[in-house]
């Protein structure tokens, strides 16, 4: 199977703002990530804030050029951001992100927003354009009369539908969803998740689904990569990774998901702070918070290796089989 998108050795680093007395430092937000997305596949990326998952998503879309490494789309290298070729390619790949109110231009009607990609890529105009907009509106489950509304007149879920409709307008083949439902209320979240699933299945889209909400990821993704401090620490088919997490971080993450009625028993409470890319620990980045880390973990950076039907990066993999509850 030919991958629709392939990323190898992606690194992104930023220069931090000058501190009071020191020299400007550099922060590696993403530090050597390989990822493949196959046609029709939904890949989940989970991790806490600062793990670099959003940055990775933006690089996969070509929105920012990687510091090093390569992204190729359909076998061709990603063109430089803002170039004409890059702009043309936008029709084929789209981003849906967390806050639909911020993503929408609050001065344009729903219809105008959805028509935007059609105008930009000169896909349709006039009556055809109106038709297509109406069809998109219908497809994402909005009422036709809502076409003339403004974003702030819609509820959060409806707005996210508008964003999705706009993303689909140019009939893309690849979609990155960055926390698409985090800002939504529980009852609406399910509506949007269902919509995304239906669309993905019907259109055969390839999708990268970024979220910190494991339950949603579990529900929508075929394959999941767990990121910690800019690296993938575990990657596996979704069924496998949640049922049987191997990396201690994944284990903690999975156990920390509050389960209705389950109380706090059996949860792995990680000590310490969420990862800070500006102060990366030596060796395995996770070792200061890891229950099973030893001196070796502080010395050696574990490689992402194939292990029992998954990829994982932990020196203690063998001794760590299903120790989590």
């Amino acid at each position, binding site marked *: 199977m030919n991958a629709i998108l392939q990323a190898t050795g992606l690194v992104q680093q930023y220069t931090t703002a*000058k*501190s009071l007395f020191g020299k400007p430092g550099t922060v590696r937000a993403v530090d050597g990530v390989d990822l493949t997305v196959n046609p029709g596949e939904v890949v989940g990326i989970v991790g806490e804030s600062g793990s670099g998952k959003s940055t990775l998503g933006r690089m996969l879309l070509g929105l920012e050029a990687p510091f090093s490494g390569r992204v190729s789309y359909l076998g061709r290298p990603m063109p430089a951001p803002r170039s004409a070729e890059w702009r043309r390619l936008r029709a084929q790949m789209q981003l849906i992100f967390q806050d639909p109110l911020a993503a929408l231009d609050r001065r344009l009607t729903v219809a105008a927003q959805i028509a935007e990609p059609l105008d930009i890529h000169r896909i349709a105009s006039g009556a055809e354009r109106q038709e297509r907009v109406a069809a998109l509106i219908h497809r994402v489950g909005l009422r036709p009369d809502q076409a003339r509304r403004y974003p702030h007149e819609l509820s959060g879920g409806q707005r996210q539908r508008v964003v999705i409709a706009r993303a689909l307008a140019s009939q893309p083949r690849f979609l990155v969803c960055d926390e698409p439902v985090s800002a939504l209320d529980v009852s609406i979240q399910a509506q949007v998740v269902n919509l995304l699933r239906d669309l993905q299945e019907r259109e055969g889209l390839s999708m990268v689904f970024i979220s910190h909400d494991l339950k949603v990821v579990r529900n929508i993704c075929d394959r999941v990569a767990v990121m910690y401090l800019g690296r993938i620490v575990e990657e596996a088919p979704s069924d496998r990774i949640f049922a049987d997490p191997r990396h201690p971080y994944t284990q903690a993450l999975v156990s920390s998901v509050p389960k209705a009625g389950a109380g706090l028993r059996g949860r792995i409470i990680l000590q310490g702070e969420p990862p800070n890319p500006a102060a990366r620990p030596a060796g395995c980045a996770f070792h200061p918070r890891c229950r099973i880390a030893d001196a070796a973990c502080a010395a050696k950076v574990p490689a992402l290796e194939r292990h029992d039907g998954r990829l994982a990066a932990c020196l203690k993999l063998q001794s760590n089989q299903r120790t989590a509850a």
Partner: protein
Amino acid sequence: MPRFLLTKFARAMLTILLVMSFAFIVLRLSGDPAQVLLGPDAPQDAVDAFRARWGLNDPLWQQYLAYLRQLAAFDFGVSMRDHSPALQLVMDRVPATLALTVPALMLKICIGIPAGVYAALHRESVADRGVIMLSIFGFTIPSFVLGLVLVLVFAVKLDWLPAGGQDGWHYAILPIATMSIGGIGILARFSRSAMIEVLGQPYIRTAMAKGLPWRDVVWKHALPNAAVPIVTLVGFMVGALIAGAVVVESIFSWPGIGRLIVVSVANRDLAVVQCILLVIAASMVMANLLVDFAYGALDPRLRGAAPGR
């Protein structure tokens, strides 16, 4: 020296250099000071001698370089009118201007901010509306109209205060009042909105939730935060004060740099005009630096970083 101080200093120097270049170019491009200084009846000999003396016949870039060299040696030139050193001429006037601007600024701060805070704490009340209306009136009246009306009322009709001149502290009352009234209005309005904004912040709710008396919430939690934008405005006001001094000093015959610049500009006394612009630019840059440091003192998040512009 810490890096950020160096950066700030370099920026300040660049700004001053820009101002000086601007002054030089505007002043030199706009014609011949000889004609102005020597008057309409000056014979050609005198004009020629004057031009030669002040190097006005050299190419512009040569004059510019010579000027920069002078500046680098802290030589600000001498007045074309009476040969006295320009810097001294300007510095002689600075105290008089400070005697107006500093109290005016104090008044603005001491009246404007409390009035604005009071209005913010009593929103929609009669006092609030009163503060807003008065403040808008305060800054919509041109200062020269205000000045002349004040003179008419307090000097001519009531004969309480002198109409102009500088012979004692009571001579300063009307000019200071004229200068500060508009600023009080602006500051009151701005403090009010800054305060209202801060009062809506979550940490105010936290302070209230922990049972802090309302007075302490306002003084210890809201005010220090509202101070950041207010300080910015106060920084801008320094410029407004200098500009205001031009008009107010003319109305009240107050011998400060505002009048000196009007007179020097009218007489094309290049060295003096350049020197005044330099002094003003330097004090504005200083004021901005002070504001920057005040940010740091007021808001730990802004320490070391340039405040958001």
